[in-house]
């Protein structure tokens, strides 16, 4: 399955959350969305936003100075 990637580098929270939110509404349930961030707060905020809005967090990881969160879009 293809995975959409949103570039949230240099954005500080909550902008990465807003960017993920605005992309997720355009996607179909089951599709995957990857956010590449430089604000470590995204590692908490994107999963929190995903939990309350019915999306599944597939992965969170740190690669050097970048923080990556992958979610599967829910059907709500």
């Amino acid at each position, binding site marked *: 399955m293809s995975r959409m990637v949103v570039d949230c580098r240099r954005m500080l*929270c*909550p*902008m990465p959350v807003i960017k993920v939110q605005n992309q997720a509404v355009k996607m179909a349930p089951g599709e995957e969305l990857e956010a590449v961030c430089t604000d470590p707060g995204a590692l908490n905020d994107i999963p*929190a936003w995903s939990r*309350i*809005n019915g999306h599944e967090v597939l992965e969170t990881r740190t690669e050097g100075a970048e923080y990556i969160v992958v979610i599967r879009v829910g059907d709500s």
Partner: protein
Amino acid sequence: MTQQRKAVALISGGLDSLLAARVVQEQGVHVEGINFYTGFCVEGHTHAIRKKDRAKPKRNNALWVAEQLGMKLHIVDIIEEYKQVLFNPKHGYGANLNPCLDCKIFMVKKAHEWIQENGFDFIITGEVIGQRPMSQRKDTMPVIARDSGATNLLLRPLCARNLPETLPEQEGWVDREQLFDFSGRTRKPQMALAEKFGFDDYAQPAGGCCFLTDAQYSVKLADLWRARGEKSYEMDDIMLLKVGRHLRLSPDFKLIISREEGEGNFMQGYRNQYVSLKTTSHPGPMALVDGVVSEQDLQLAARVLARYSKGKTAESVEVEIRDMDANTRCLKVAPMGPLEIIPEWIL
């Protein structure tokens, strides 16, 4: 079967909006949260910049509130639209550059538009009469309801019994008797209600959730507008106002000097947009130049930067100047003496 009513609650992340939403949830109403991001929200960009703050737990309080309440949260970017609120507040500014009343009217107006677009019935806020000197007063409550266009669809559950009945009360969507009559600056009733609901980890009230209520931040913003000859800003401007020491060395430019490593790392990301300086012969901070500079200005900026480096007592300090295309050159300067830094430079 009666139809379940739907409300949207303005969620700041503080205790009052948490309680207001919960009080209405308790009455069987479906509540979702909405949080507006102006660019000046303390919640946002404070996390990631300073190194000392990185050790603290990071939490977006609006998201945390939504999670506690088991409700959805919609975060709305109003950065661009908010500029007109800040530039021309009909009801004026507070003690600093905080247009609190216009801000509240604008957010309720946006929430009103949102409920119309999304088929919701009414709006909830955590306002309490007398809680805030500018926006939460007995005489401003009806102004917010009227000027936002929300009128009787705006319910303030924490002080509703001190106010005229709203449509949700008149129609029996909520029971007025189970709403509250809080007033004044005391936090005790809210804390007691929080305890009743079992909330003990909420964000502490700390003088607002907006940088515009901060005196020092407002001085820097006013300086930015003065230097530009107009009220204008971009997101990068308001981010950089939060970072570093700002010295207005001339009407044409200011120097932003990092105060610690975290700020220096953050400011590195702006080197392609601003001329930057760093000391190379001695450890020291980095600086960005905001404005138009002559060679003489750069000499001055380098001497000031050297003053804030470990070489401040040395005879000379080498400073690397980097332009926006990453071309570098070196200046050798005498650091400024402590009395040469003019207090009026420091914003």
